[in-house]
Every structure is written in structure tokens, then in C-alpha cells.
């Protein structure tokens, strides 16, 4: 019975939340900013996975790029990504499947938040209040705007399992922690978690030294009793570290670059950032709190919004008793705030200079969404609980009532001073006042029951209106934008904004006329008769630009990566290269997937084939089953000599061992997840 009611506490607000964001879920308003590229990556990944291909290369990303970067961004081992595959199998379109996944993932975050709140406050009423405040905060809009939901869910569940484990050490909780940690470790930025966790632990030792000591002792006892299980957890975590470490190694190899991100960084890894670059991603630059109280009609994606009830609770609880958990939460928030404001405090600079992993955190304002906002909601609920406790113990209830009404009046006066206050905001204050009146006059049981509805109403009336504004505003902005005009083929191509690409393609983009490059990229395969060696330099790029623009019958291969036997000048050759060998019947595409190309060649004489898919050292070529020398041609692409007659050319990315490892990881994580569910199920049965 109790669990059914709790199920309603969780699902009904969530369904209404989804209704508030109906414009986004129906595709009326499109995903924005980073959310778009993440949707693309996950779509590409799940589509390949459903075909039985593990994509380690993305041929569609600026003429191809290693996919490991994107796999680390999304955390490819997360078994919940398989939900997208499942939904598509059920017949959902890619977009709908992804939006469902996003919604479900946000629900998971809200659920974990509810469980944490219930654990802390030991009361479903306060947990529910916290849950709706969190759910209807602008965290919800973030899922359509950036990707942090992908790292937030494992982080919040980790903390839930940690709190559970700290109370009663059990296998399920430990495995839950390890599983969440494993997912976090397979992403390329586990450092947000690491920082939050480190601050949390340091402050926990400071605030609760005895509890922490006791926890340590109990943990050792637990570890002693479950050696095999703990060993499995350790192995699981160690294996989880491997993709991240491989990626880190790859980021140092120079095979791929992130020019904008890496500009000015002192560390060789391509994903490292410079201190000056971090400032652009800090809380001052991104903490858009201009519409916190008023002008919600102008709310934008990424803006901070919290229902008025949050502020009212903090205001009325001013005279409630402060307790240790409140101060603990506050300390966490303040420390993370100091880090998040970078140049406006010395802490970030200190950490950047002395902690290696801080050199990899750019969007430092994520701390706000990942920890500060959830902790602030918990703090407000803690204060609210304390207030109700003080009132219930007090004999002067009349005085408290006057005080609470006064607080509401003060808040109304404050709102009057703001601009553009919506009707929902006024209604929220009114409903909040009604709640407190019911609390004072309704009796304990009655006020509690009605309290659920009234507090939810106070949050919902405002949020419904605010997210309605947001949906309409975003729709208008997207309609007004000249996005489609920019995509018109007749547009003049400016320099490609690649963000992430291979080192050689980046070189090409920076040295060849954009329009020439754009025209060249339209041809997937080109056959040449002449091959000349080159050494990079301004003069060469000048020649290359002219040669490419006029489609000269000359391919260029890197001087120091090829031998003289591979350079050739045909005595009699056509002036122009064959840019469409498929039509001329010289080339037939037998098959291709993310990681391979299989081509059938039919040539009258030996010719040099350039596949305009980027080259990296991890690509291997085979002609009729025999290894062939794959060259870096025309600066960035793959090229090889194909003999006369019929032959089959096979190009493969990476090694079979690599694919086996990735598939094994998926199986390991899925298996661990099922094991975790079984352990937790046993705990609840």
C-alpha cells in the first residue's frame, strides 16, 4: 500500500512535468546546444549497436574521426542506453526513442533525489516536497539543452547508495556504488564527480568525525565478511577505468585535436584546457539568474529557475532551528560555489595549479546543476522540516502563524518590486499561504494529506506557466533563426567550425580555401594516376589548393610516411583525376559500416585510390586478403595503390581485440546491472 502511494508521489508529478515540457517532447521545440550533438552521438551509437557493430570510427564526422571521444562523452557502457535500442526495436522513431530515454533518465534522477530526501528526512512528505521542487526546477530544461543529465544520474544514484551503505552496509548498496562509479569512470569527465565526492568526504570528516570513523570500521567488517564480492567490485572498477585510460592515452597521441578547447593548455592531452579558457565556462558566465524571480516570460534555456515555494520555505524557516545537516549542506554548496566562480576566488586557481585533473574541467558551472542545486533544495527542505518541528513543539502557535503570514507578505512585497511577475508566481504564494493556514487549523493528519496536494499545487501552477513561456519562446527563436537559410547549398562556406577532428583534417581546414575543400569533400572516392610526395608548408598548401580546385590528376602523399616506390609520375595520363570511379565502373562498394570499407576494384592499369575518409594510424588496408600499405593522401585522407585487374580492397579500423574488449564491457555492465537489480530486489522482498 505504502509503496503504491509512493509510486503515485513519484509518477503523477513526473507526468505533469512532462506535460509542462510537451513542446519539447513532441518535437515542436528542437533540442538545443550540446544536447543536439549528444542526441546524434547516441543515435549513431545505438543504431550501430542494433546492427551488431561497435562503432569505433564515425565516418560522418568531418570526413571521419575516431569515435572513442564520443563514446567517452556518453559513457558507452551504460546499459540504459540499450533502452534506446529497445524502443527503436518497438517501432519508435530515433528522435522519439531518444526523447523517451531523456525523460526516463530525468525521472531516474528525480527518483534518486526522492530516495535521498526520504533517507535524510525519514518522512515521505518532506521527501515529496523536495522531489517536486527539484523536478520542477530548471534542471528539467537542462536535459534539452546540454548533456549533464548523462553524468548526473550515476552521480546522484551513487550518493543514494553511499548513504544507504553508510547506514546498513549491504552487498546491493556496495554494488550500486561501484556500478554508478563504473559508469562515471567510463566517461571522459569523471572529474566533476571526483571533485564533488572529495568535497563531500572532506566536509563529512570535518562535520561527522565519529560517524565517519564508525562507518570505516563497519565497512572493514563488511569487507572482511564479503571478500569475494568485494574483489569482484574492485575488478569491476579497475576494468571500468580501462576505456578512460585508453582514451587519455589516445588524447596524447595527437591523432585527434580539439582546437578550441585545447587552445593555450599547458598539458599535451587534447582534452586539457587552459586556465583562461575555464573562465568562459564558469558559474559567473553561465549562472543566468536574471529571471530567478521575475520576467519569466523571457526565460531562456540554461537560465536558473526555482519555484517560488523554494524561496518561501527558506524565508519562513529563518527562525527555525539550524542543525548540523543544514550546515554540512551549506558548506558543500559554498565550497563548490568558490570553485565554480573561478577568477572571483583563489580556490579554483589553486586547484588548477595543484590538482592534475582540474586541467580537464572546462564547463565548471556544471557543479551548480550536479550538486549545488540539489543540495540547496535539500537544505530548504531541511529548514522547512525544522520549522514545522519547532512550531509543533511551541505553545505560541498564534505568534508563529502571524510570523508566517508576515513572511508571505514580505515575499509579496519583494515580488512587487520585481518586473514581469506572472500570475502563476502570485498563485504560488497564495497557495503556500493556504497550506500554512491549513497546517495551523487543519490538524496533523488532515493538514499532512492536504499538504501534499497544496504544496504540489504551489509548485505546479507557477512551473506550468513558466515552462509554457519557455516552450513558446524557444519555438519562436527557432522559427526566426536563419538556421535553414545557412544550410542552403548556395551559401558561401566560411571556415569549418569542427570542434573535434583528426589532426590532419584540422591542418587541411586551416590551410585550404573553405570553398575548395567543401567541393573536394563531395567526392568520396578519387582515382589518380600520379602520386607526388610533399612536405607540409605554406607553399605546398598553395599548390594543393590550386591542384584540388582544378581537379588535377595528382595525389599527394606525406614525404616521410611513404617510399619512392610509391611516388609515381605516369608518362601519359589524363589531365584530371577520376572523381566518380563508381559511375565509370572501376569501383563498386561491396559494403561498409562505421569501421570498415569493402570495395571491389576493376582497373585497366594500376591506379592510386584516395578514399576521402580521414586517415589515422589505426586504419589497416588489405588487398585480396593481403596487407597493403595505407598512405596518408592529400594531407588528411586514406590512399593506396590498387593493382590492375579485379581486386577487393578492405579497410578496417582498429583491431579485433579492441572490439572484443568493448563488447565484453557492455556485457559486463549489463550483467552487473542485472545482478544489482536482483540484489536490490532481494533487499525489498
Amino acid at each position: 500500500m505504502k509503496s503504491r502511494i509512493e509510486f503515485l508521489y513519484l509518477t503523477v508529478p513526473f507526468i505533469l512535468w512532462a506535460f509542462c515540457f510537451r513542446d519539447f517532447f513532441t518535437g515542436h521545440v528542437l533540442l538545443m546546444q550540446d544536447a543536439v550533438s549528444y542526441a546524434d552521438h547516441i543515435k549513431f551509437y545505438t543504431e550501430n549497436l542494433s546492427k551488431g557493430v561497435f562503432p569505433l570510427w564515425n565516418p560522418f564526422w568531418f570526413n571521419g574521426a575516431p569515435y572513442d571521444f564520443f563514446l567517452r562523452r556518453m559513457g558507452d557502457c551504460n546499459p540504459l542506453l540499450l533502452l534506446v535500442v529497445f524502443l527503436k526495436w518497438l517501432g519508435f522513431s530515433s528522435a522519439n526513442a531518444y526523447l523517451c530515454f531523456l525523460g526516463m533518465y530525468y525521472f531516474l534522477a528525480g527518483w534518486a533525489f526522492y530516495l535521498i530526501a526520504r533517507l535524510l528526512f525519514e518522512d515521505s512528505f518532506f521527501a515529496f516536497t523536495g522531489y517536486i521542487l527539484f523536478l520542477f526546477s530548471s534542471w528539467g530544461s537542462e536535459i534539452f539543452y546540454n548533456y549533464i543529465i548523462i553524468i548526473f544520474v550515476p552521480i546522484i544514484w551513487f550518493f543514494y547508495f553511499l548513504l544507504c551503505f553508510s547506514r546498513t552496509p549491504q552487498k546491493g548498496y556496495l554494488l550500486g556504488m561501484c556500478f554508478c562509479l563504473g559508469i562515471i569512470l567510463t566517461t571522459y569527465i569523471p572529474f566533476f564527480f571526483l571533485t564533488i565526492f572529495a568535497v563531500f568526504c572532506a566536509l563529512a570528516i570535518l562535520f561527522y568525525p565519529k560517524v565517519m570513523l564508525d562507518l570505516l570500521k563497519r565497512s572493514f567488517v563488511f569487507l572482511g565478511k564479503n571478500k569475494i564480492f568485494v574483489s569482484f567490485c574492485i575488478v569491476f572498477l579497475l576494468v571500468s577505468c580501462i576505456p578512460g585510460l585508453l582514451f587519455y592515452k589516445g588524447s596524447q597521441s595527437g591523432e585527434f585535436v580539439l582546437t578550441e578547447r585545447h587552445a593555450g593548455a599547458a598539458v599535451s592531452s587534447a582534452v586539457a584546457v587552459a586556465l583562461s579558457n575555464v573562465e568562459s565556462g564558469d558559474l559567473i558566465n553561465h549562472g543566468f539568474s536574471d529571471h530567478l524571480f521575475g520576467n519569466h516570460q523571457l526565460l531562456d534555456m540554461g537560465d536558473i529557475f526555482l519555484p517560488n515555494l523554494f524561496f518561501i520555505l527558506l524565508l519562513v524557516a529563518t527562525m527555525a532551528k539550524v542543525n548540523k545537516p543544514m550546515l554540512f549542506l551549506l558548506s558543500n554548496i559554498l565550497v563548490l560555489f568558490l570553485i565554480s566562480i573561478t577568477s572571483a576566488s583563489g580556490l579554483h586557481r589553486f586547484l588548477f595549479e595543484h590538482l592534475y585533473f582540474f586541467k580537464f574541467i572546462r564547463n565548471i558551472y556544471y557543479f551548480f546543476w550536479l550538486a549545488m542545486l540539489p543540495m540547496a533544495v535539500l537544505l530548504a527542505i531541511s529548514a522547512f522540516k525544522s520549522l514545522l518541528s519547532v512550531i509543533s513543539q511551541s505553545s505560541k502557535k498564534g505568534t508563529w502563524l502571524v510570523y508566517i503570514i508576515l513572511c508571505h507578505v514580505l515575499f509579496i512585497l519583494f515580488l512587487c518590486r520585481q518586473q514581469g511577475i506572472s500570475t502563476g508566481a502570485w498563485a504560488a504564494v497564495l497557495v503556500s499561504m493556504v497550506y500554512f493556514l491549513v497546517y495551523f487549523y487543519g490538524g496533523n493528519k488532515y493538514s499532512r494529506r492536504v499538504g501534499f496536494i497544496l504544496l504540489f499545487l504551489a509548485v505546479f501552477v507557477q512551473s506550468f506557466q513558466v515552462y509554457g513561456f519557455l516552450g513558446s519562446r524557444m519555438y519562436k527563436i527557432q522559427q526566426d533563426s536563419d538556421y535553414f537559410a545557412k544550410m542552403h547549398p548556395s551559401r558561401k562556406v566560411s571556415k569549418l567550425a569542427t570542434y573535434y577532428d583528426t589532426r590532419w583534417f584540422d591542418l587541411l581546414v586551416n590551410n585550404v580555401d573553405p570553398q575548395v575543400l567543401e567541393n573536394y569533400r563531395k567526392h568520396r572516392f578519387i582515382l589518380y594516376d600520379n602520386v607526388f610526395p610533399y612536405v607540409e608548408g605554406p607553399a605546398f598548401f598553395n599548390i594543393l589548393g590550386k591542384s584540388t580546385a582544378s581537379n588535377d590528376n595528382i595525389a599527394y602523399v606525406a614525404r616521410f610516411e611513404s617510399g619512392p616506390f610509391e611516388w609515381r609520375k605516369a608518362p601519359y595520363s589524363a589531365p584530371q583525376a577520376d572523381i566518380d570511379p563508381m559511375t565509370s565502373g572501376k569501383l563498386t562498394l561491396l559494403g561498409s559500416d562505421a569501421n570498415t570499407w569493402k570495395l571491389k576494384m576493376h582497373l585497366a592499369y594500376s591506379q592510386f585510390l584516395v578514399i576521402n575518409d580521414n586517415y589515422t594510424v589505426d586504419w589497416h588496408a588489405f588487398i585480396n586478403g593481403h596487407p597493403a600499405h595505407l598512405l596518408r593522401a592529400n594531407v588528411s585522407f586514406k590512399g593506396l595503390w590498387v593493382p590492375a585487374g579485379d581486386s577487393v580492397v578492405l579497410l578496417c579500423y582498429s583491431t579485433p581485440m579492441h572490439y572484443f574488449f568493448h563488447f565484453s564491457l557492455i556485457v559486463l555492465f549489463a550483467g552487473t546491472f542485472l545482478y544489482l537489480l536482483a540484489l536490490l530486489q532481494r533487499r525489498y522482498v
Partner: protein
Amino acid sequence: MLRWVFSRVVVIYFIIFVFALSCVDLKTFKMRIKVRRLNQAVPNFADMINFSEGKAEKVDWAPYRRYFQLILSYIPSDIIARELLGYVDFYSAQENQAIDLFKSSTTINGQLLLWSNYNLGVLYYKKGMWPQAEGYLLKAISSNSQLDLLMMRNAIVYKQILVNSAFTYDLQDTINEAKGGAYILLLSSLYHEGAYDRMVQVADFGLKNQHLFPRVDFYYYAGLGYYEKGRLHEAFLFFQKSLEFNKDNPDVYFYIADICRSAGRPEQARDFLKVSYLLHQKNDPRFPYERGVSLRFF
């Protein structure tokens, strides 16, 4: 009492207050918030540039006003923002505010500035307040072009304007063009005031300045000055010179016709009058010369 207060949630606000004072560099914090707000408010200057060049008829001035007002709320003494807000205010039907803003930005450290003086001159000229127009236009002419150029190249707002793809002009040229315009309006103001001697002097001075353009106007106004003074021979020569550069100004033919009539050549006078009449019918927007002069910010 204090113990009671410190056992309440209010202590959290106190902690936050002390924390903010002790741990946060509030000066940097405030400054960076200002920069963020300014960055958010930067409008697309394409419309404003196109309007200034007569390529756009309607402009939504609100984002420009908001931006310049924001700059002035942070840096009230910013001369460039005052000049630009004055320009925007004038076209947003806030003429009085525009005049106040221009008047407060006519000099910097005692040095005359071009744009505000020029705009005030244009504004008073359009209102028919000739002495005031003359005063400001004289100041505009006397301003140091290099100082204006330096200020425009160093001001962040102008950098934002200059990087806009709609801006395809040379700053030095636009300054010279504005000065040329100021000369024309000054000559026209002097004409309206009946100060023909000064008119001839100013036109002569303008003609000696090689950097100014369009130079053809000065010949016309010099001719006009001499004509009004009754020195028809000099007037005739200047009008003829004017026709060498531009044969479409109907007024020149009108005055030449009158000179011919005075010289006892009625047939020639009739021919010139006929040409003048025909050109008037065309209603060429280039004439009279002062017709095309408007407020500018580059």
C-alpha cells in the same frame, strides 16, 4: 538573545554574508557579471549600419537602446555610448534625450569631438535653428579627426560594429565624408542667415582641404555666396566650375540663367531656365546638397 539567534536558520544567511565578504573577490565578481550582461546584450549591428547608410528603412531600436543604456549604467562617463545612444534616441523619437546626450559628449578633455557636434548641427539644422546649427557644425569641422579615429578604433562598441559583415567602409573615409557634410550644412546655415561673406570664406577654406569630399558642393556654395553678394562674375565662374563636376544640379542652371538675364542675354537665360526646369522635374535625391545629410555615427 544572541545565542538564540545563532541557533536559528538565520545564521545561514549570516554565514553566507561573511563568506561572501571574506572568500569572494566581490570586485571581480561584480565586474564579471557586468561583462556577462553586456555580452548578452550586444545587438546585431547590421540593421543600425544599414539604416545609417540608407539601406534599411525600419529598425527595431530597442536592443540598441538597451545595450547603450546598460553600458552607461555601468560607465556613465562613456562618451562613445552617449554618442551612440543619442543617435538611437533621435530615431526612436526621443529627441530631447538625444540632444542632452549629444551635448554631454561634444568634448573629451577639452578636445572637440566630431560625431556629437556633427549630429547636433544636423539636428538644429533640420529644426531651422541656424545659429545653433552653425555653432555645432563649426565645432564638428574644427574637431581633430585623428582623435575621433583613435577613439573609434579603440572603443569596444565600435570594434563590435566594425567586425559586423554589414560594415564595409573605411573609417577615415567616413570621417572625411562626415566633415564634408558638416561643411555643406554650415554653408547652407550661413546662407539662411544671410552671412554671405563668411559663406564664401568657408567654401574657400573647404576647397583648400584636399581630404574632404564631395568637393563639387563647395563650388556651388561659393558661387551662391558671390551671387547673393552681387558679384555675378565670380559667381558665374564658380557655377561653371560646379557644372564641370556635376551637370545635374538644377539650381546651378537657375542661377546661371539669372546671371545671363542680368547680363542682357535673355535667350541664353531662357535655355538655362528650361534645363533647370527639366532637371527639377527629375527630382534627383542628390539635390539640394543638404537634403541627403542626416545623423551619423560613422
